[in-house]
């Protein structure tokens, strides 16, 4: 592994709207993510998590500051197909069935490998993924030929996850990927995600609202606060891996959970958030 960061965000600012309705979605965001680490982002609804992810995914230009992936621009990283993105809404193509939806990204931008920056080249050249197997693994084995409109919400979300995982990306950006899944499906997918991460040593940025999930999965948890959207805390999770179901019940684990909840609550107390009655 290289010591230069996989993702580097420096003094990033993002402003939506103009004039009277200006909204500072991100301000002064600095974040370096080492290659192969699993980073969770957690924060109150509307604090800018998705915006940050979109910035990394080259979907927004920062109004100020810099974003780099493996030393190149997000655009260049996407061009080299280094990035796997699970958007907050599944964004499936309604005319393609599940299998076609997850296969399409492979048919696109085929010359991508050549464009990989050297910093990420080491981890290329893996065997192609078996998408059908991956779909079976997430419980969509019988839905391969269904259209998105025939899927439940959770099934759509799993399709979007497989679509990104299938790319075996160097950088995996996931925006609340498990929000529509029941606890057991979620746990199974967490396992699978960790296995994959372990196997291909990918860098994961994972937006979640579950503190437990963040602690269980992450090397680092980033806590964000709104108004303006900013990073208020970066907490390294020093727990051994693999983290079993039992570990979740240990004091160390609870310590981290409480710590993050604490920071989160502070962030959440920022003005104009829901008032508990």
């Amino acid at each position, binding site marked *: 592994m290289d010591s230069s960061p996989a993702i580097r965000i420096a003094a990033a600012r993002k402003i939506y709207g103009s004039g009277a309705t200006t909204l500072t979605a991100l301000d002064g965001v600095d974040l370096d993510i080492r290659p192969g680490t699993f980073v969770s982002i957690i924060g109150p609804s509307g604090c800018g998590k998705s915006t940050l992810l979109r910035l990394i995914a080259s*979907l927004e230009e920062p109004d100020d500051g810099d974003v780099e992936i493996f030393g190149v621009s997000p*655009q260049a990283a996407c061009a080299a*197909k280094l990035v796997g*993105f699970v958007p907050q809404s599944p964004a499936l193509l309604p*005319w393609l069935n599940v299998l076609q939806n997850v296969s399409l990204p492979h048919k696109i931008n085929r010359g*991508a490998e050549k464009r990989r920056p050297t910093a990420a080249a080491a981890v290329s050249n893996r065997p192609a993924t078996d998408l059908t197997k991956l779909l079976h693994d997430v419980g969509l084995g019988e839905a391969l030929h269904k259209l998105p*409109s025939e899927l439940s919400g959770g099934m759509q979300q799993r399709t979007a996850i497989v679509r990104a995982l299938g790319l075996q990306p160097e950088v995996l950006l996931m925006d609340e990927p498990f929000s529509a899944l029941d606890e057991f499906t979620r746990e199974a997918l967490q396992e699978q995600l960790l296995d994959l991460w372990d196997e291909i040593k990918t860098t994961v940025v994972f937006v979640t609202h579950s503190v437990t999930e963040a602690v269980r999965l992450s090397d680092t948890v980033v806590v964000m606060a709104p108004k303006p959207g900013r990073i208020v805390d970066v907490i390294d999770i020093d727990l051994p891996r693999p983290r079993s179901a039992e570990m979740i019940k240990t004091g160390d684990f609870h310590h981290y959970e409480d710590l993050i909840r604490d920071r989160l609550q502070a962030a959440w107390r920022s003005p104009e958030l829901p008032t508990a009655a």
Partner: protein
Amino acid sequence: MIVLLAVLWQIGSVTMPYLLPPLSAIGETLVGNPGYYLTNAWVTLQEALLGLVFAFIASSILAIAISEVAVLRRAIMPIAVVLNVTPLVAIAPALVVAFGFGPEPKLIVTAIICFFPILINVSVGLRSVPTSVVQFYTTVAASRAEMLWHVRVPNALPYLFAALKIVLPLSIVGAVVAEMFAPGAAEGLGTAISLASSNNKLSVIYASIFILAVMGATLLAIVTAVERRVLHWHDSHSASDD
């Protein structure tokens, strides 16, 4: 409904015989000389569909061009508008002067008539892709061509089918008008209509229009059926009463 119209027509044909021929006269000429109408209909249909195919190809390509490249939009749209507002009956003769008595002038007129609706509808359809979908495919650096082919074009299909429904009947009008105004046409329902009108044969005029209507309705029914198969995934086809 149809019965009602027929009754109204008959009343009209009695009160205004110089305007509407009796239905029986229309029926007689149709039944009396089906070969004449079929041959001419076939000629007109060929011109219409061929012109439509040209229009379809040209306008799809241009729709893609203008929705991809803003500069081209500014260059092409004015020309498209000029073509669209030029009264074709005024330039059909000029087309014959330029292209002779062959099928070309008729195909050009038909193609020009069909061109604009496809251009507009398809270019709107190409740009109506949900942002979240475009964003996902941006992260895998889909090239413009890939985005087009895999995302924008299928997304434009509902708009394209709407355009086809507009344009299939129009192509028939185009062919007919071309036959009426481009000299040299010796066949086709347009020719039949102008010959009949120069001879005040109202029944032949309306018999020809009847055939045209049947052709138009048939073509429309065909696109609608194809649309139903192709667009089964689209919201416009999910309603159960559909």
